[in-house]
């Protein structure tokens, strides 16, 4: 029931907003549907927490500890982003960047995007997972090009082609899994793509085939995660789209892609019994962290800056999942949560900052605290949080990752240290003059919505100091589910 509502609400929302999205009340309607989605997600979460994992609609959907908290997170950030986009889009319209038509497109695609992510998270069918991922790309491509500027078109095209190709690889990987599964299960047809069934027989899957399949899946979904060197679409797409979209792309879509990879990793590891997947993921993770750190060093565009920081953090998560084991998995899950909260909060602040100073270029944004302390402090605290400064939650996960790495993969720690150090210098060195110093900013036609920023940062702060027991239980279950060496 909750599931139908969860997936239905955004779809209906998409239809409604496709027709009425440009009305004055459009943004509120958008937020309303997101609120419904969030409510149902909460209900679902409560149900799973109380009754354990669910298999629904002849096993096409599975809700377990791993994905239910991602569902809740996605719905929550979806809601806050919708709230944030109310004033933001109004300002954009006031600045004459958008017409009614594109506003309709924006709102309906926003809902559709949410729907596809939720589908990808909840489905039990690897094929459907693939379909949903592809759909997520398609629904956001037109949002990236919303402004129709040359840059945005280029970004959209790269996004489309690179992710399309990557996803195609993922489809082939899925197919190989299906192939292996058929041999294991002996039965053709739908059940052979159901994750639960595969997980049941993962021991018997043909190793070589599964290994090949994992390569295709990793490259495929890894492209969407933005793992270096497959990441090239990410900074462009995140920087050129409207800020709310950047927020959800960074905060949510990457999580979903990681989720897909991890689901596959569980199967593959089960069948291979070797450290191969872990090594690949650790390699990708480290590469992404290092590359991103050095790219951060020379950014001039504030949104590109934080896009690269997303790559870096996805690298951390991938590395952690690669290390595996209860603690590293726990850390990775926690990191996914806090990263999506923090990063979206940062993008909210960045969006308003860019609007206030009428430019995305870092050197044009100066002294935010003096003109609007809330945005300034939001950006400052957000950046410090994303840089892993306690008492924010990002630190908690990085703490666990680093300490685990020190014992399990000591060879990796110098790289981690280097990447984190360079990233800190790069980001903080750019954020400080934006927040402090003499100001260049101006007033906005609509008062900015900064509630989401501080709600997110508050949550991250709380997660850094105290993780509620039921949440911890979730994480632990999920971590156990993912397992690893």
């Amino acid at each position, binding site marked *: 029931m909750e599931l139908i509502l969860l997936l239905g609400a955004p779809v209906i929302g998409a239809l409604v907003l496709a027709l009425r999205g440009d009305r004055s009340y459009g943004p509120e309607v958008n937020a309303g549907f997101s609120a419904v989605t969030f409510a149902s997600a909460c209900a679902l979460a409560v149900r799973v927490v109380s009754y354990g994992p669910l298999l629904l609609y002849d096993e096409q959907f599975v809700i377990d500890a791993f994905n239910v908290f991602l569902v809740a997170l996605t719905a929550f950030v979806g809601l806050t982003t919708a709230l944030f986009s109310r004033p933001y889009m109004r300002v954009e319209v006031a600045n004459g960047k958008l017409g009614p038509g594109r506003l309709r497109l924006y709102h309906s695609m926003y809902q559709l995007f949410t729907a596809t992510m939720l589908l990808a998270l909840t489905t039990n069918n690897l094929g459907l997972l693939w379909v949903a991922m592809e759909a997520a790309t398609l629904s956001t491509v037109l949002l990236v090009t919303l402004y129709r500027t040359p840059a945005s078109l280029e970004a959209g*095209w*790269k996004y489309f*082609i*690179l992710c399309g190709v*990557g996803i195609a*690889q993922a489809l082939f990987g899925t197919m190989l899994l299906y192939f292996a599964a058929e041999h294991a299960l002996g039965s053709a047809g739908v059940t052979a793509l159901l994750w639960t069934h595969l997980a049941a027989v993962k021991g018997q899957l043909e190793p*070589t085939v599964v290994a*090949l399949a994992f*390569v295709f899946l*990793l*490259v495929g979904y890894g492209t969407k995660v933005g793992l270096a*060197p*497959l990441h*090239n*679409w990410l900074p462009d797409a995140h920087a050129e789209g409207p800020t709310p979209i950047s927020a959800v792309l960074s905060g949510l879509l990457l999580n979903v892609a990681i989720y897909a990879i991890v689901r596959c990793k569980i199967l593959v590891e089960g069948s291979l019994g070797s450290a191969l997947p872990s090594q*690949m993921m650790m390699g990708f993770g480290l590469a992404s962290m290092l*590359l991103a750190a*050095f*790219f951060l*060093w*020379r950014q001039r565009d504030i949104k590109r800056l934080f896009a690269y920081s997303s790559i870096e953090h996805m690298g951390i998560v991938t590395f952690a999942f690669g290390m595996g084991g209860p*603690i590293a998995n726990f850390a990775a899950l926690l990191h996914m949560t806090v990263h999506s909260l923090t990063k979206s909060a940062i993008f909210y602040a960045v969006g308003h900052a860019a609007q206030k100073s009428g430019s995305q270029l870092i050197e044009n944004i100066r*002294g935010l*605290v003096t003109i609007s302390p809330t945005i300034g402090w939001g950006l400052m605290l957000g950046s*410090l949080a994303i*840089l892993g*400064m*306690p*008492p924010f939650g990002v*630190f*908690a996960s990085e*703490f666990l990752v*680093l*300490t*685990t*790495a*020190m*014992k399990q993969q000591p060879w990796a*720690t110098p790289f981690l*240290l280097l990447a*984190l*150090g*360079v990233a*800190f*210098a790069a980001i*903080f*060195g750019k954020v*400080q*003059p934006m927040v*402090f*110093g*003499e100001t260049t900013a101006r007033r906005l036609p609509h008062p900015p919505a900064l509630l989401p920023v501080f709600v997110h940062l508050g949550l991250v702060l709380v997660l*850094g*100091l*105290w*993780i509620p*027991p039921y949440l*911890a239980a979730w*994480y*632990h279950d999920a971590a156990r589910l993912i397992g690893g060496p």
Partner: protein
Amino acid sequence: MAVSFSSLQVCLALLAAWLVVGFAGLLRPRSIRFAGRTLFPLGALCGAALATVAGLSLGAAPESRVLELGLPGLPMHMRLDALSAVFLVLLGAASTAISVFSAGYFRKGEGTLPGLLCLEYHVFLAAMGFVLLADDAYSFMVAWESMALSSYFLVTTQHRIEEIRRAGFLYLLVAHVGALSILLGFGVLQGGSWQFTFDAMRAAHLDATWASIAFGLALFGFGAKAGLVPLHVWLPEAHPAAPSPVSALMSGVMLKTAVYGFLRVTFDLIGLQLWWWGLVALGVGLFTAFYGVIFAAVQTDMKRLLAWSSIENLGIAFAGIGLAIIFRGSGLGHLAVLALVATLYHCLNHAMMKSLLFLGTGSVLHATGERNLGRLGGLIHRMPWVAWMTLIGALAIAGLPPLNGFVSEWLLLQAFLFAGDVPHPFASMLLPAGAAIVALCAALAGYVMVKFYGVVFLGQPREASLSTARDAGFAERVGLGLLALGCVLLGLFPALIVPVLDGAVAGLLHVPTSRWGGPWWLLAPERARHATYGPPALCLLLVVAVVLSIYGLRLVYHRTVRRGPAWDCGHARSDARMQDTAEGFGQPIRHMFEPFFEMTRKLPSPSDPTPTYAVTVGDRAWKLLYLPIATAVHAVANAVAWLQQGRISTYLMYSFATLILLLAFVL
């Protein structure tokens, strides 16, 4: 009915109270009076209470408790043992005086709003407290980084000024890198037991290699906070940038948390100590001390000078720790205790005197608006209170009996005297040289302080504007007075304090405590044979001698005292410009230790009608270490950027290559 609280509970409550006071500042963020008249005094009260409680708990057994916070499976553990208590006393005492001073210090229109400032200030205090109480890696790191963060915001109070922002950035960067290395150190220490509590780390047994790695990481991490060369560069930038009470807190208290952490990790958490670690720490510490003091001698900005002198003192402290490790590693526990007692005493002293001096400079800064030594002078007439209080601090830090600076120097040298007992010939050969360097640094500190005090407070005012300088207000005087009193008491009654420290340290090293002999006025350490020092007696002797000489003269001498112009060897006119400048006073040091300095001289040409001479002294660490790193990172960044050419075919090629490679790897 009577409710009894454990001291740990009270300490936690007081730290919480600090936080509350801080957040209360947000109630009326723009009101100086509210913050100054109400909140800072309250904070001072909390500090005094904290010092008292911690002091009373010194004798007691360690007590710990678990807060319902932190990571799942890793709640925040808090523990109050003798070592923490000693540093808590330090924190409480110093912060009391500094808060009282701050109550009268902050003025309108100094960057951050007073309310916010009050918040950052008290969060800073509380964070330091939690660092000292933390009993597991996570809460330690959280407190540690919160400390860095809040102090960063305090440093950047006047964020409109470019170099202050730069200083803040440098500070936070170094702090963060250091924190990461400490974090990795804990990662090593937990030794596979996924327990991050300090108890688990005590229990974990590391082999020599891992232990050495942990030690190295700790030395790097805590060294970055303590400002050991070459990680010291942030310190001379950040201290002048911060408002003076904040400089006082950072220099007087925050740097000590580095010493605390290093002691905690080296002697408490790492099971074994290898003697050559001590050599490393000793070497780094001594080099830092020497480097710091010679740079202090050539500074022309009074707060920079004090910052460099802090580097020196922390170097001495780490040298003491290194000595202790050497003794400990060679099985001479009782001597290790002696060295550590000296170190702790030095920390207490430094907290008092350096805070005193920084606050003094703060008052001077407010009275004159000048930090440049070249524009000060003769202030002893304009602001006698500040001058005399500062004199005590200066004499103390110069290590002159009977003030406190001398006591720790005395103890440390006593410890060095036992170099001969160290079984490793190499070490025992090096130690005397170490003692020599300590002595040299102490003497140079005297040089620095004469320069500092003489140029700022004595002589003739170098600027006409100085004649309008006014003495500090009441609250500031009280703050200064408290710290000066602390210096005097620590100087006169070591015999009462040292045994307590001995207890703390002996507990840390699991060595039986020893008598520090003698009556209350005599410091006669049993660990150091036949060495006695009785400051009260010495002080009494001096006073008696002075009084005698005064009255003795009165007997034979009946003439009057007249005032007249300075004779100056018969020179016709001498004005303030003819006095030695700060640069001039530093000249011999520049001359002698030239290789250490990065000097740029601006010499006038002979034909120049208006000749000007300027010399600026830079830190070689920049050119030798930091600029290369920066350029390297930049180069790598540019090289990496080449990957991203904007052409989609190239990107597709990357994906293709990755795919092929991985497939080949799998096959």
